């Protein structure tokens, strides 16, 4: 039995729910301390005094949290073989401690790869909204998937 999601299963228009993640103050500060040590991501007073009006998550933290949802909620059930990049990413609204992010991935298109016949490229539009339904992040992200026709475990089954 093989219920893995392969390249052939990813049809344009299909939407995958990636689940939710609550953002804690500790996580915001921890990420910022390591990767984006700007005062408004590290300290409540500095956040209050900033243009965003409160302690906010680094945009790279938001992108990484959405990656976590994508990996746990979808890619780890698939034949994913990584991604060549992100065509476009928008940080639409700030993310604050206490927010709950909910993400989804929509298949925009898929195509074969001449150079890698066992893989295919699928373009996704990935979107994350907060608890008010306001979009905080949007990205167009091509992802590589193994083909069912090339999967050894399928051939054996």
């Amino acid at each position, binding site marked *: 039995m093989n219920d893995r999601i392969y390249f052939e299963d990813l049809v344009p228009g299909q939407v995958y729910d990636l689940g939710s993640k609550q953002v804690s103050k500790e996580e915001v500060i921890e*990420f910022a301390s*390591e*990767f*984006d*040590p*700007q005062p408004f991501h590290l300290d409540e007073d500095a956040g209050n005094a900033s*243009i*965003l009006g409160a302690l906010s998550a*680094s*945009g*790279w*933290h938001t*992108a*990484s*949290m959405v*990656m*976590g949802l994508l*990996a*746990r909620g979808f*890619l*780890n059930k698939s034949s*994913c*073989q*990584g*991604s*060549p*990049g*992100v*065509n*476009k*990413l*928008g*940080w639409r609204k*700030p993310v604050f401690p206490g927010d709950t992010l909910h993400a989804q991935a929509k298949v925009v298109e898929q195509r074969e790869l001449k150079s890698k016949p066992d*893989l295919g490229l699928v373009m996704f539009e990935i979107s994350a909204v907060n608890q008010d339904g306001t979009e905080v992040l949007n990205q167009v992200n091509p992802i590589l998937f193994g083909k069912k026709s090339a999967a050894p475990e399928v051939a054996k089954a």
Partner: protein
Amino acid sequence: MSAYFEDIEIGSELVLGSHAFTADGIIRFAEKFDPQPFHLSEEAAQKTHFGRLCASGWHTASAYMRLNVLKNQELDELNRQQGKPVARFGPSPGFEDLKWLRPVFAGDTITYKRVVTGKTESKSRPKWGLVHGQNYGINQDGETVFSFKSTVFVERQTAASE
């Protein structure tokens, strides 16, 4: 950004610093943010087309941000010591054309740099301008592994006239 919008030169290039990616660091990031087999263990990675344990692309990107912020803070501090004003910069609306060109493997050292590619006056915010950049991550063999196009709001020394 440290310099005012007016003082930023198109074509100027700045090396931000280097980050050494260890197996422990790669796995620690991946467990939190990108728990896919090729980011979690050497053994699991060998069964994928990557062949070896490699960093999450978001880890590569986040390490850029760390060095970018630290470089800005260093330049700001230098300006303060010389009694010069320090320009502010605003939140970024996003980026384009981010490319993970090659895997970043455990043991790789990535050197990051940024190049100013253009400037746009902001019609809606006369006190600010938009600075466009191309950013790179280059490994110890001189191969570009990472790049993206950035846009950031930078404060003007004098507000643009109407």
